[in-house]
């Protein structure tokens, strides 16, 4: 059991931070299963990040009066219980409430695990393990969520977390945490936390918008989307060897990382087609940037600052408030752009149907079926295949209808891609703002 303690704590940290974006690919399924609206389902994502961002610092402040192992065990148990509750939720309101509770448990677990990992591994290695687990969790969350949703259901995302968390509770209780160091006067590290917040807001564009574009805009399955976005964590792994090879100073490393994230997001906004291959290189840029920045900034914000847990609380708050700010900025932009894209998409579809090499009666039947599908989807991107499958066409008309369906799908992909462009570019702008906070001249302190 003792050998499994630290890995279980590391997995717990990764699980909690993966939960930040783990449901992204499951949102369409949740929307359908719980018969809710796009606006409400977004709160499944927002609620977790908002609560985690808001409770992290107060939780850290109250930590000095508590035993880390008790707090950790309590937090992990609460996280496990509320994960199970999420899986059983029968309405969107219950799911959002369970996600809030999950975030409270997550905050306790994250901060407790930091102290316990330091107790197990020592200061430097313990903090490094905690930071790395967080980066891995954040980067792999959407991938894991997509695979589980496709293989089983959206509920599986929450179910699989329970056994790990249940095992981690006794593991946490076995660790005797190091005696608390006396609190000193270290103030929160403003600059790294601000950069972290802006970068988290920008990364929301990569992790949240990209999966939405793939699943909703380009109509790829959650598993395909998950496989596609796995480029980000894979590239993030490649960032460390690159940094070791070139040995840049920390500030240069973070600045280059911010620039890579900005460049990757800008490229995601202008793909030449809806071929998944065009997302690989931009995602690799984002992944490299993520690998160069998030762990480095988290370490900078915590380095030599005591009490450690309080500064960890600030980094958690910065990251998750950043995610919420990112969602708050990007969601209205891309929903408005999607609405605006309806007219050009309808006009493009109309042009293709009018000019289609079909008999006049069949053109009218296609137009009626497409109209019915558009009404049924209520503003979401329609599934044209259903409309075409409902048509009764002569066999000789089928090839032309198939070509028309393909061309119409391409127009929808074009319209969706165009609708996401501004959001990706805003994400790139947020990453450039993060870069500014890194390169802005520091105030001189009087000698």
């Amino acid at each position, binding site marked *: 059991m003792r050998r499994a303690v630290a890995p279980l704590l590391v997995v717990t940290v990764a699980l909690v931070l993966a939960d930040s974006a783990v449901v992204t690919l499951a949102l369409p399924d949740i929307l359908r299963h719980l018969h809710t609206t796009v606006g409400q389902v977004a709160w499944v994502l927002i609620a977790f990040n908002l609560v985690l961002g808001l409770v992290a610092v107060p939780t850290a402040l109250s930590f000095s009066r508590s035993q880390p192992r008790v707090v950790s065990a309590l937090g992990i148990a609460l996280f496990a219980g509320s994960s199970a509750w999420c899986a059983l939720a029968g309405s969107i309101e219950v799911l959002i409430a369970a996600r809030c509770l999950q975030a409270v448990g997550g905050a306790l677990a994250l901060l407790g695990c930091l102290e316990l990992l330091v107790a197990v591994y020592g200061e430097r290695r313990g903090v490094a393990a905690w930071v790395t687990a967080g980066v891995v969790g954040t980067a792999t969350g959407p991938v894991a969520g997509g695979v589980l949703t496709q293989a089983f259901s959206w509920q599986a995302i929450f179910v699989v977390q329970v056994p790990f968390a249940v095992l981690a509770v006794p593991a946490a209780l076995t660790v005797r945490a190091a005696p608390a160091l006396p609190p000193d006067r270290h103030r929160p590290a403003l600059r790294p936390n601000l950069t972290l917040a802006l970068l988290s807001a920008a990364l929301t564009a990569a992790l949240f918008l990209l999966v939405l574009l793939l699943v909703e805009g380009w109509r790829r399955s959650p598993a395909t989307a998950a496989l596609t976005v796995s480029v980000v964590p894979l590239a993030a792994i490649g960032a460390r060897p690159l940094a070791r090879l070139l040995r840049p100073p920390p500030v240069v*490393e973070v600045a280059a990382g911010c620039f890579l994230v900005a*460049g990757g997001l800008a490229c995601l906004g202008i793909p030449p087609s809806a071929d998944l291959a065009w997302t690989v290189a931009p995602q690799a840029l984002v992944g490299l940037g993520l690998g160069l920045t998030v762990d480095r900034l988290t370490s900078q914000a915590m380095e030599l600052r005591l009490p450690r847990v309080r500064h960890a609380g600030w980094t958690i708050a910065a990251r998750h408030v950043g995610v919420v700010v990112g969602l708050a900025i990007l969601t209205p932009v891309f929903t408005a752009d999607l609405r605006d894209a309806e007219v050009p998409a309808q006009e*493009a579809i109309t042009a293709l149907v009018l000019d289609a090499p079909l008999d006049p009666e069949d053109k009218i039947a296609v137009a009626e079926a497409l109209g019915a599908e558009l009404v049924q989807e209520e503003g979401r991107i329609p599934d044209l295949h259903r409309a075409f499958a409902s048509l009764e066409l002569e066999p000789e008309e089928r090839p032309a209808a198939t070509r028309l369906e393909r061309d119409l799908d391409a127009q929808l992909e074009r319209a969706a891609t165009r609708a996401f462009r501004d959001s990706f570019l805003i994400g790139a702008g947020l990453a450039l703002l993060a870069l500014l906070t890194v390169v802005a001249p520091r105030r001189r302190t009087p000698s």
Partner: protein
Amino acid sequence: MTSPLSLTGLPAVALALVGGVLALQLTNGGGEFEPLHPADPCEARAVTSQAEGIDGLTERLVLLGIDGAACRLGVSREAFTLQLAQPGPRTDAEVEALHDGLLVAVGRMKEDGTLPPISDLVDEAMDNADLNRFLEAAIRALPDSVIDAALKTDDVLTRAIDDLDLRSILENLDDQDGINEQMEAAMTEAVKDALVDRLRNLL
């Protein structure tokens, strides 16, 4: 001491990577992956139809007519079509624009030589028309050259368009069978009436 390589190495790599990917995307059409832009309805376009006879002619006429109407209203052909697809009463401007657009379409088809000779439409018109057997037999017996010399397709179509109750058609677009019946009836009637008139004159 920080070496120049450690200061500039990673930024140079980042710059090269971002520049390379950006250049690759842009040279392959990145930024232009957008929905089709509606064409200018005032510019002549070639239209085709899979249908033959009166159906095919009607379709080509309607497609060009929508172009002409959209041009007159200052909107795209697609926007005008989507506007017509909405249920509800039609404005005088819409009805007049479509009427004029259809007449312009006849002129365009005449100019570019895509109007079929009227003799191509006679058999179909006779099949659909309710004529007495002697009159029908007399018309069918007329040589194509006589029919084509006596009747011009553009005149027949202009008469059909003038006879159409466009407001009623536009307000009942969801009744597709009704529209087909009206359009076909108008075309058939126009061909039939013209032929009967011509035959009477000949006799």
